[in-house]
């Protein structure tokens, strides 16, 4: 039950992020959407790692840690590209 509740929340976050990614145009909106999508997947992994009495599974935890760092790297690069576009169109 717990797993379904938390795992389901992960799926819902993924879907919400996907919707916003497809609907909104501005870069920052898309990045927030992508990050929330990613958080949804991460949340699903954390949810399935937790199993009541047993100690939680450390493998999904490590995967999520890796995923978080990758997501921030990609966000930083995308923002830098967006800033470059802003500067170019501003400097016309």
């Amino acid at each position, binding site marked *: 039950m717990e797993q379904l509740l938390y*795992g389901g929340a992960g799926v819902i976050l993924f879907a919400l992020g*996907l919707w916003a990614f497809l609907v909104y145009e501005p870069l920052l909106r898309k990045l927030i959407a992508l990050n929330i999508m990613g958080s949804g997947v991460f949340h699903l*992994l954390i949810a*399935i790692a937790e199993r009541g009495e047993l100690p939680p599974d450390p493998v999904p935890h490590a995967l999520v840690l890796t*995923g978080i760092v990758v997501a921030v790297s990609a966000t930083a690069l995308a923002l830098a590209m*967006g800033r*470059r576009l802003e500067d*170019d*169109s501003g400097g016309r």
Partner: protein
Amino acid sequence: MDASLALAVSVPLIGGLLATALPKRAQGLGLLASVATVLVVGWVMAGVWQQGSLHAELGGWAAPLGIALAADGLSAALLGMAALVALGVGIYASGYFRSADADRHFWPLWLLLWAALNGLLLAADLFNIYVTLELLGLTAAALGALTGTVDAVRANLRYLLVGLLGSMTYLLGVALVYTSYGTLDLGLLSNALEPGPVAATALVLMTAGLALKAALFPLHFWLPPAHANAPAPVSAALSALVVKAAFYLILRLWLDVFAPVVTPSAAGLMGMLGALAVIWGSWRALRAERLKLLAAYSTVAQIGYLCLFLPLLQALPPGAERDDLFVALVLMALTHGLAKAGLFLAAGLVQRSAGHDRIDDLGGTAQHMPATTFTIALAGTALIGLPPSGSFVGKWILMTSALESGQWWWILVIAIGTLLAAAYVFRVLSRAFNLEPTPRSFVTQARTEVPALLLALTSVAVLGLAADPLWRLLGAGGGA
């Protein structure tokens, strides 16, 4: 334990680190690392040639707890193609970038991309594939934006975002797999997998994510602007290697790991998308105004051809015939990779010499750059699929299999695609030979023209005429 597999990733990685830390020597270090990587890849290929397949457990932990690297015939063939293209691109790049600044930014990112590519082709773990995909996507987008023009940055920003969307979708599939099967290792997973909604959904999610990255129709929209606006050596690598890496993963999942889950209708759907990609991509290539845009649309079509193989491979029972078809698929992929790399490199030279790459105004290019025009002609031969190129053999086997398995309608698609390809290639060549011929010397800039020419030549002559070793490499590797 085979050391060559880990080295195939570490050597370009170390090259990238050194090029980052010592920017003034980036070019020399980069070329050195390229040669070293080619040697290591040769070692891997020799190992696969002798032993059929290689396997290495990293960290001293066996799967499922640890991560393994594996090479079979398919990955070895693609590794080899990647090494050839990458070496050519590296030599070309060393004579291409005019500003020292661009050159210094190119090398570290390029070597990291190569490391990611090798890592992806050798990966045997679903999550490890995700990490290599991200490394590949980030470096590819950053390299594509290296020209710094607004168009290039915008197109590659979109490419980056689409790639991230694909990775997230892929990762959701991986999470589902781990929920049900508790393993990420490809080999263990393929043993444990049972057809059912979970496995099917995981495959759909992963395939959708990868199809975005492989620019499979109708998810190809990001590719033409991103590839057409990147610096020429980068376009070559993106079209020849990066897109194909994502397709390789689709192949790995559909033919290897998830084979029991794949139904004829699912494979048929992939074939349909491939058919649409062939026709749409070739048509847009014919209508393209710029040479690099033409090359980019032609990549969309070529990915389509590769997808046509899926329904046929699914329909054929294991045996010699299916093995032949599989070799034909790899042959098409290799030929296209080499030819497209040659074409993009040549297009970059045309653009630089003429100041533009508008096809209609290319008159007289042949007079100035005979070697480059010859490269375009050779690459065109391979893209059309004329003998003796590797794609001629590939298309021939594809059509025979289509007839024999009763799926004759794919032949129509191949015929239309081939005619359109012939049209767009001859459209370029007829423009290039517009004026009276006054050739000066065949090669004008050896450092950039020769790699392009050799890549295109390999795609036509070497792969077409000497395809037998490929049969052995893939056959011995169990050829999926």
